[in-house]
């Protein structure tokens, strides 16, 4: 039986307005080669200048991943010739990355919290995009020079399932920090996956690097495929070749990629155009100021404080916005498990239903945390019951008004006093004299009919208990 060993190199596009080393707009979907300048096209004599915000975000991620932060971070040139990088080198960090020796926890599908060590976090630039068609290749350098953060893990993951869970957890983490949207389909998060296998207790086996993986599900499948492929090879007394393989998503297999011999000597040397960066006290304080409670910690806290189920806890911490929404609506923990359950149920049930119905995200919807809290308060105080509450929720989506105001405008408030109910009862009595007579003569079975008439006349707003007691009195 073999053990799978996985290490990852995760790249994320940082959430900056401009590229890493020039003021060109960092924006997807623009016309080809519109966001380019002499710096990112590698013209001679130009001088790259570091984007401070990219550095802040890089240090922020390193800090969140419990890294040792570099007191003096440096950039290096990684030399290679390929037309996606017009400079013929990529500016990256090799000798002094922003962070080293970190670790991060994630929740494994087996229910335990596992830790992955972080080898390093370094800031670099993305390459341009190429389209290969017929005998030519088309180059678009809008993406060349984008700030890219690479997080390199130690080989601490041991299954495809764990690798997928780790990446989803990492995605949430960068979204919580606000440094990237972490979207793999759109290419703002990419992951090279190193897989090897070994028998328990043996040293690490030969690793194979898998590329071209643009979803966490493919990565899980690729890890599982590689485990089987390598096991078959070892069982057949064949050796594993250290190589790069590409994921073929149509066939669910990895395929060997041909590599040019000797092309992997990158001849790193310090980038002479970029001076070292020494974070000062103010810079480090700014990093601390932007650090947030991380998703896993928040999930654990909310799970305990509100006695949520695992599903509820997962749901309400899926995004920072949702978690903030949940905590605002519950009064930041002060109101206890009952409020937590109620709000979580709203969010997972009817709110989700209305969002789908109206085709909205919670962020863009008229439902604010305050409005949901007000709606729940109306329910708790008995001024409305659950059916009206659901109607009110729809009305909030339709009319974008506070629940209290809608309640008044719609006249949906529950009828809770005899003074309110009495005239309605009198009216029903007047409309159905024969039924009233029959009941008074002893046919109590017809009482239910009268209750139904009262409920209809009040639009369901009367409390059944009150209707019954007042009915008894009047009969």
């Amino acid at each position, binding site marked *: 039986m073999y053990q799978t060993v996985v290490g990852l190199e995760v790249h994320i596009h940082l959430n900056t307005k401009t590229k890493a080393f020039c003021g060109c707009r960092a924006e997807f979907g623009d016309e080809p080669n519109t966001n380019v300048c002499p710096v990112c096209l590698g013209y001679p004599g130009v001088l790259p*200048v570091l984007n401070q915000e990219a550095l802040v975000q890089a240090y922020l991620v390193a800090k969140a991943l419990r890294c040792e932060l570099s007191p003096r971070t440096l950039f290096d040139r990684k030399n290679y010739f390929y037309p996606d990088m017009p400079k013929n080198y990529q500016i990256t960090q090799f000798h002094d990355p922003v962070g080293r020796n970190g670790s991060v926890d994630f929740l494994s599908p087996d229910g335990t919290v596992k830790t992955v060590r972080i080898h390093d976090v370094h800031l670099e630039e993305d390459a341009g995009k190429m389209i290969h068609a017929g005998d030519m*290749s088309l180059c678009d350098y809008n993406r060349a020079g984008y700030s890219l953060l690479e997080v390199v893990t130690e080989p601490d993951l041991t299954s495809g399932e764990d690798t997928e869970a780790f990446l989803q957890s990492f995605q949430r983490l960068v979204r919580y920090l606000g440094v990237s949207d972490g979207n793999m389909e759109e290419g703002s998060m990419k992951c090279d996956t190193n897989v090897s296998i070994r028998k328990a207790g043996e040293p690490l086996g030969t690793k194979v690097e898998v590329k071209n993986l643009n979803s966490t599900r493919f990565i899980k499948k690729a890890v599982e495929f590689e485990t089987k492929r390598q096991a078959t090879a070892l069982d057949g007394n064949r050796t594993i070749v250290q190589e790069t393989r590409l994921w073929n998503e149509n066939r669910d297999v990895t395929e060997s990629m041909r590599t040019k011999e000797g092309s992997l000597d990158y001849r790193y040397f310090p980038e002479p155009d970029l001076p070292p960066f020494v974070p000062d006290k103010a810079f480090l304080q700014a990093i601390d100021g932007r650090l947030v409670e991380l998703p896993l910690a928040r999930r654990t806290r909310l799970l305990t404080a509100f006695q949520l189920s695992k599903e509820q806890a997962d749901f309400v911490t899926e995004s920072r916005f949702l978690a903030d929404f949940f905590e605002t609506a519950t009064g930041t923990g002060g109101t206890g498990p009952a409020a937590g359950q109620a709000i979580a149920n709203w969010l997972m049930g009817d709110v989700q239903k209305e969002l789908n119905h109206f085709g909205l995200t919670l962020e863009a919807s008229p439902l604010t945390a305050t409005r949901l809290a007000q709606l729940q308060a109306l329910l708790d105080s008995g001024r409305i019951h659950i059916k009206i509450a659901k109607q009110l929720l729809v009305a909030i989506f339709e009319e974008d008004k506070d629940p209290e105001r809608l309640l008044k405008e719609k006249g949906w408030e529950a009828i809770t006093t005899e003074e309110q109910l009495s005239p309605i009862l009198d009216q029903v009595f007047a409309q159905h004299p024969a039924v009233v007579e029959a009941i008074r003569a002893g046919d109590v079975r017809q009482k239910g009919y009268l209750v139904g008439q009262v409920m209809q006349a009040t639009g369901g707003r009367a409390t059944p208990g009150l209707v019954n007691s007042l009915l008894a009195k009047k009969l």
Partner: protein
Amino acid sequence: MDIGELETTAALAQIDLGNGDLERLGEAVSQMLAHFEKMNTVDTEGLEPTTHALVRDNRVRADDVTPSPLADAMIDQAPEREDRFFVIPNVL
């Protein structure tokens, strides 16, 4: 310098060297390497490598967009283009 090593170095730098060049430059490179060897004998124990001269403070810029007015002019310089793409022989 070993001719094989020189060939590898030239290939990495994408420089096309003919046979005559290899012998001639091999000699020159060997001289340079000998000089580096001499420099290597200097005791640098405890000294930090100098990667940059005359650097005092951090040099960074704010994350503000400064669109380049040269984008169109640079595309015009391309030997071959299609719409706004630079066109090169297929490298896949």
